[in-house]
């Protein structure tokens, strides 16, 4: 059995997901990772035990999706110096190459399975030396030390998982990028031009600043704002590119701009 994905964009076994994306039947950007995760957790509750096969498959697809979405949200590390189109092409090629690579090895591994199947049909003789020859065999432990014994055990040893999961980096209150973008846009309409610090003067926590920064980057990418920075680590100045937005249009804009990573 395989985990069934049920989101608005896609319904079906998760294993098909990537192949469907490659066949252009599912729009990656319409898939919500959180929906996917919720569905998976619900599925887990129904299963009596964790099926590792399903779990791995799920993790591969979910993490690929998350990475793809993050990359799209997170512009190239040097967005200001690089030609925007060029940066975009590079990101796109990387993603495609990566997906095609996974698909290639996955397909190749099915050929391995066939080879293994064929090879397993013949069984080797493990010869046995009988006495008096057996005792002639040199002592196979000659020169073995305690350390070598321990080393040969390592192959079978599983590293102790750290029982706790560090959640200190998680915000106590989730902040979504769309909320942050809304705040940034409203503030910029009011101020027109200001520094990033001024933009963030209401932020209490570091995570709010981080999310605010992501929102600024996203707005920049969508050509809604201009960003200037005189020197590296210098002050970032943000400027609104005036457009005539009604409040309703603003809502629509925020709705449409693909800020659905944070919460849906």
């Amino acid at each position, binding site marked *: 059995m395989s985990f069934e994905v049920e989101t608005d964009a896609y319904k079906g076994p998760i294993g098909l997901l990537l192949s469907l994306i490659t066949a252009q039947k599912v729009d990656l950007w319409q898939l919500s990772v959180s929906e996917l995760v919720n569905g998976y957790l619900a599925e887990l509750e129904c299963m009596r*035990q*964790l*099926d*590792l*096969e399903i779990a791995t498959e799920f993790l591969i697809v979910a993490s690929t999706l998350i990475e793809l979405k993050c990359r799209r949200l997170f512009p190239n590390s040097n967005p200001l110096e690089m030609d925007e189109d060029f940066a975009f092409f590079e990101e796109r090629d990387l993603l495609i190459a990566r997906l095609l690579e996974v698909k290639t090895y996955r397909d190749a591994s099915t050929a391995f399975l066939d080879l293994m199947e064929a090879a397993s049909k013949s*069984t*080797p*003789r*493990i010869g*046995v*030396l*009988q006495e008096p*020859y*057996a*005792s*002639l*065999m*040199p*002592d*196979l*432990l000659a020169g*073995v*030390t*305690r*350390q*070598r*014994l*321990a080393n*040969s*055990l*390592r*192959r*079978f*040893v*599983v*590293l*102790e998982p750290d029982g706790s999961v560090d959640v200190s980096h998680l915000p106590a209150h989730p902040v979504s990028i769309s909320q942050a973008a809304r705040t940034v846009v409203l503030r910029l309409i009011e101020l027109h031009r200001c520094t990033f610090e001024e933009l963030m003067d209401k932020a209490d926590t570091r995570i709010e600043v981080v999310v605010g920064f992501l929102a600024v980057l996203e707005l920049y990418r969508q050509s809604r704002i201009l960003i200037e920075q005189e020197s590296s680590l210098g002050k970032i100045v943000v400027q609104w590119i005036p457009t005539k937005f009604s409040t309703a249009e603003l809502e629509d804009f925020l709705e449409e701009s693909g800020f659905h990573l944070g919460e849906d």
Partner: protein
Amino acid sequence: MNPADRAALSKEIEAVLMVSPEPLSKERAAEVFGVHDEDFKAAIDELSSFYSSSDRGFYIQKVAEGYRFASRPEMSSVIEKFALSQTHPRLSSAVLETLAIIAYRQPISRAQISSIRGVNSDYVIKVLISRGYIESTGAEAGPGSPRYYTTTPAFLEKLGIFSLAELPKVEGFMPLPEVAEALEASLFDGSY
């Protein structure tokens, strides 16, 4: 039994003798090949005389427990040379691994050892017993209940230590055989 069936049976017997680590008894043969004792007997006698009369390096040997392939007695000098030759890379790493598992996880059964190593370990266990590094312990509760293996004083002596407590600590843990089996069952499709 018609000649074609007889020929097919002979091929099957040869294949099984080739991979069997122990002599093949006629009870086991009846079960595996699904034939009457006398048919098995006739087939194996025919095979035996075939190998005895052809000029090969091995023959079918009849021992108390059954039948097995063995090198011919006149090949003894080359077998001796083979036994004495120093390079047994595969066997020695298998021996070391098996011994390590027994040392750190004793007492442990044959099936548990094989399950941790992922391969049948019967022959290696036999080698370790014959060298006196491990022994099977505990009164068996009854037929069919597994034997458990532990290391011997000769093993400690070989490593130059006084007690198992002197073995180096291995970071992490070796899953209990039951856990290893469960993990394996879920990591590998299909059944055994």
